[in-house]
């Protein structure tokens, strides 16, 4: 077990290194010159070169990348070119909001997805089943910015049930969580349905029925716990989905998380921020996957870590 975790951690580090190298290289070849942006329109060529030198941007790629890694090892993400603030500080200030949104989204998708999947499995083959599965398909396919704007328009603008974007109270959290959660709910309802259908076919369920247990006792006491565990193990993998989702959803709802930070930085070609957010997201995805793999054997003893 320990050896497995250690090996996976080394692999994760290599993946992160790869992500950092590719992102850094992509941003390096970008035709935009960050120094011109810092220096402004009235700067003389001499000033521009001065700034370029101070930022080390006149160095060859490998030196720049090496310096960045060296800083990273010491926990230094560098300073934003345009805000002139430490990137680590900007990310730290915004990370709690993104995590809050993520927890909200997980709650939404589990409640929605598991319920839909359960009902569909129990009503297998009926119109309800089909309607639910079409619904989940729509949830999976709908672009998040469309879902977000739709929810915003109906529940905030028209009905005034929730605030129109922003951050702070619980009511601010509902719509963005729902927007993110609808996508996941689509996946979960399908997985839950097939998992439940599988379990219902198992011998122990037939035994439970045969010994005369009530239907609800069979479903909630025997089938559900067995069906739900493999589904829940997927949450780790979900984190990757959230990381791509938050860029859109946070921008639509004005949610002050790292997705919004990334979006603003991309528009302004603020390279240190783009690097920082990319790495933090990559970290979350890698850790999420690792977590999902580590949790699985506890849930299903038939699976062994290799």
């Amino acid at each position, binding site marked *: 077990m320990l050896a497995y975790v250690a090996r996976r951690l080394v692999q994760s580090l290599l993946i992160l290194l790869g992500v950092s190298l590719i992102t850094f290289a992509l941003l390096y070849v*970008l035709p935009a*010159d960050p120094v011109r*942006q810092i220096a402004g329109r009235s700067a003389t060529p001499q000033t521009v070169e001065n700034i370029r030198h101070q930022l080390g941007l006149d160095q060859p790629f490998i030196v720049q990348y090496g310096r960045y890694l060296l800083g990273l090892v010491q926990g230094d993400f560098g300073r934003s070119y345009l805000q002139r*603030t430490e990137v680590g500080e900007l990310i730290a200030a*915004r990370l709690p909001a993104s995590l809050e949104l993520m927890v909200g989204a997980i709650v939404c998708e589990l409640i929605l997805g598991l319920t839909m999947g359960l009902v569909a499995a129990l009503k297998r083959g009926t119109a309800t089943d089909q309607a639910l599965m079409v619904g989940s398909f729509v949830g999976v396919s709908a672009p998040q910015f469309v879902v977000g704007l739709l929810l915003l328009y109906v529940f905030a603008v028209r009905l005034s049930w929730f605030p129109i974007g922003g951050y702070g109270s619980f009511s601010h959290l509902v719509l963005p969580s729902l927007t993110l959660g609808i996508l996941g709910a689509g996946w979960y309802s399908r997985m839950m349905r097939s998992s439940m259908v599988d379990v219902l076919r198992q011998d122990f369920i037939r035994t439970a029925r045969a010994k005369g247990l009530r239907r609800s006792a069979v479903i909630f006491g025997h089938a559900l716990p067995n069906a739900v565990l493999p589904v829940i193990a997927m949450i780790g993998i979900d984190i990757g989905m959230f990381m791509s989702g938050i860029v859109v959803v946070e921008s639509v709802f004005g949610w002050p998380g790292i997705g919004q930070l990334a979006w603003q930085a991309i528009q302004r070609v603020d390279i240190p921020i783009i690097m920082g957010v990319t790495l933090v997201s990559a970290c979350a995805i890698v850790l999420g996957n690792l977590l999902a793999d580590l949790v699985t054997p506890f849930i299903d003893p038939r699976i062994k870590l290799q």
Partner: protein
Amino acid sequence: MKSFLSCSVAALALGLALSASAPAFAEDAGMASAKAAEYQPDPDAKEGGAITVTYKDDVSTLDPAIGYDWQNWSMIKSLFDAMMDYVPGTTELRPALAESYEISDDGTVFTFHLRKGVKFHNGREMTADDVKYSLDRVTDSKTQSPGAGFFGSIKGYDEVASGKADGLSGVEVVDPSTVKITLSRPDATFLHVMALNFASVVPHEAVEEYGADFGHHPVGTGAFKLSDWTIGQKLTFEKNADYWRDGVPYLDQITFEIGQEPIVALLRLQKGEVDIPGDGIPPAKFQEVMADPDQKARVVEGGQLQTGYITMNVTMPPFDKKEVREAVNMAINKDRIVQMINNRAIPANQPLPPSMPGYDKSFEGYAYDPEKAKAMLAEAGFADGFSTELYVMNTDPNPRIAQAIQQDLSQIGIKADIQSLAQANVIAAGGTKDQAPMIWSGGMAWIADFPDPSNFYGPILGCAGAVPGGWNWSWYCNEDLDKEAAKADSIVDPAKADERDKMWSDIYDKVMADAPWVPIFNEQRFTMKSKRMGGADNLYVDPVHIPINYDYVYVTDVQ
């Protein structure tokens, strides 16, 4: 010139509402204080209350040496002061931290007499040493200020900018309340430069304490002080009770809420939760707002010192032929483009905007005439037209405007492919020789830093800007005009201000004779406010304070 980091047509900076006024100028202290008296306090103004202003993007920095976008520009103006500023709502210079000033006859020595008893937000009194420190700091290459170049006329600038000297030799502290600034050449725009945010006076101890984070912990002498900054969420400004100008500011507090889409801000304004949507009226909602009398009554319209234009790269064939450039000038239907953006602009025929001194009212420019354009193109040897590329920034409405330009060009046989890119990439393409044959400047257009005609020449039309990484995207370089420009800017005598403006008119007329640009339009500015906001209209389209002059507006619903 501010670099607008992400802007729509809705809300661009530095507008100008008033008729052309020559740069204010005073040879003696008497004249200077007479200017200061020109502003009459609003008799209806009420003290107290708080307002909410919204923005979509994070505030980047509040360091006056660094901040250079339309969002932080007026915030910094309310936190800091410089030697000079402008009479509220106008482009007229008045002394600020300087009580008075003198200019030597040859226009190279400016002596500023500081106001006494002015205190920084940290309680310390401001002195002449702080003025020198601030100017040394902004020009020091280690500060990486985008505004350092404005101070190029101060003696010793080159040494400081290149790191050879620690301080400007041209800035001398005569006594604790007198600063003498010597220029290496007469500069007719120097008093405007001393009113820029970059010339703000900062206390050295606070800069040293916070270092690179001074932009998050600003300490100035301004009407407001920063009391809270929650990154990504909001900033709060509190009234500076010790402000050296009597009676202002009226407001006790301003809250800037960050991360609000313009459309959301507008909805919240209608609910009474927001007082000023900082990003303006979103283009999609503009007609709806203007069609509703109740909402329209709360919109203030003003001009701004802005011109949107197409550049044609004169070093790239076929745009190296003047006839081709003239033909393009005649081919563009500017009225239609203005209609496309809901008439939020007026068609332009020259580089200067109408409210700028030196604007040539009699200049006719190139009238829209596709037939004649086609004939000229044939004359230049392109009877069958040619293919080219039009670079454009990829945010609305710029791609739509580019399409209109593309259609107009196709009428005379020019096939233009649109390259729609992120702002930084268009800027990079423009600054690379022989890369971008045509660029539509929208979203990156030139907006003046101060109301003076010279501000539209040097970097964008002069030889100095026609260098790799420069902003002269036409790569137009006319050395004769450069000489005339230098001559005009050496006229410091206020009695000759009209003569100087005339010289500048001639320069721009000659530029247009060579037709490196197609001037398209001058944007108008529209600021929306809540019902309870009070104060003269020109405070809401203040040429210098964007979107509004925070120091002088007030709310009507306080006791």
